[in-house]
């Protein structure tokens, strides 16, 4: 192999150093979760559930993340990043269960449940808003299924919240936390108090007819 000329060597040096600098710059910009930039999202008081004619017992079987977000726990990338302490799926499951439990509508286990809900999470956290404020959004859909008949129906829920922006990191973190909590509460409320859930329960759960009617064919999820 022929030795490199001075020109080629300097060109190689410049290319290599620029590549190294750019990769180190990317690594430095990537925020890392630390206790000081991690927030806890909680529902607070349980959301009051609507009254049903025949109150069924629900069971949340599973919550699947369908957001397509590669970093679901990173809610804000700027200013050193803001992270969630738990997966959004776990937070959502907890909040729905908490509200159902307070209304005595949560079954002890899946086997004893009248209706089983499988939740698909589409959005959790901040969405693109104006530059002046923070726009929190939680969007999911629940597939309500009667395990005895196999029939199922989809119930959609969305929660939004607008919070003021801030300049200081501490205030941004506080506003983001309050904003996502408000959106989560709104989405949970939209689900448990929605007419879609009311219709689904009325259609899928008829305690009087269960003993007389034969099981219907299973529908796809």
């Amino acid at each position, binding site marked *: 192999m022929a030795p490199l000329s001075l020109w080629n060597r300097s060109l190689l040096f410049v290319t290599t150093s620029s590549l190294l600098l750019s990769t180190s710059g990317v690594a430095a910009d990537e925020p890392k979760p630390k206790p000081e930039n991690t927030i806890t999202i909680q529902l607070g008081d349980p959301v009051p559930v609507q009254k049903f004619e025949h109150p069924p017992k629900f069971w949340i079987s599973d919550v699947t993340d369908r957001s397509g977000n590669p970093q679901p726990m990173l809610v804000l990338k700027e200013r050193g990043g803001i992270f969630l302490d738990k997966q959004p799926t776990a937070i959502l499951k907890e909040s729905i269960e908490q509200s159902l439990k307070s209304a005595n509508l949560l079954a002890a286990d899946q086997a004893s449940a009248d209706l089983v809900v499988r939740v698909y999470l589409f959005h959790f956290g901040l969405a693109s808003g*104006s530059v002046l404020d923070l726009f929190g959004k939680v969007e999911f859909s629940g597939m309500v299924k009667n395990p005895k008949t196999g029939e199922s129906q989809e119930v959609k829920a*969305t929660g939004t*919240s*607008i919070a003021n922006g801030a300049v200081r990191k501490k205030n941004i973190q506080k506003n983001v936390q309050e904003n996502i909590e408000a959106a989560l509460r*709104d989405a949970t*409320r939209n689900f448990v108090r929605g007419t879609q859930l009311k219709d689904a329960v009325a259609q899928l759960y008829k305690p009087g007819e269960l003993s007389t009617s034969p099981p219907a064919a299973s529908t796809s999820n």
Partner: protein
Amino acid sequence: MRQLVVVIALVGLFAAAASARPKDQAPLFKSAEAKHFTTAEGVELSPAFVDYFYAELRNELTKAKLVNEVIGEGEAVDDADAAKSVVISGSITEYKKGNVVKSALIGFGAGFKSLRMDADVVRRSDKQNLCAIHVHVKVDPRWNEKVMAKGAAHEMVKEMKKALTEGGKPSAPEVTKPS
């Protein structure tokens, strides 16, 4: 001197009472359900705009204290509360993108982004139309569309409050917000 102090105190008390009265006023309705606005054919706005406007409208309704509670789309309301509840629906009828060059060279509102919206406020129980609002918002073309949504929601609720407190006129006058 003593008389002057008494007069000043009375005037102060009167002013305080007058300013406190509107704050203590009870909201007109128990609940309001805001729906996602539809877009007319030819309106080139992103789906995120409608989503953001929905959130901003609910936020402005809460701030305006026109209703006790702002509920989400598709939420159930007790039959007893239906007569004191309203549903707000509407559509975006026109959107013009604006022109940055025109705005910078001419000024005075030329080349501004323009948005026209219609909204109906309907009583939940008997579906009676309480008022119809038409809003026209103009913003600088350099601002993003979410800022325009914020302005539109603010104007919409302001006009709604005016129309409903004045006794439910069938149609409010068109509003133009220059910036």
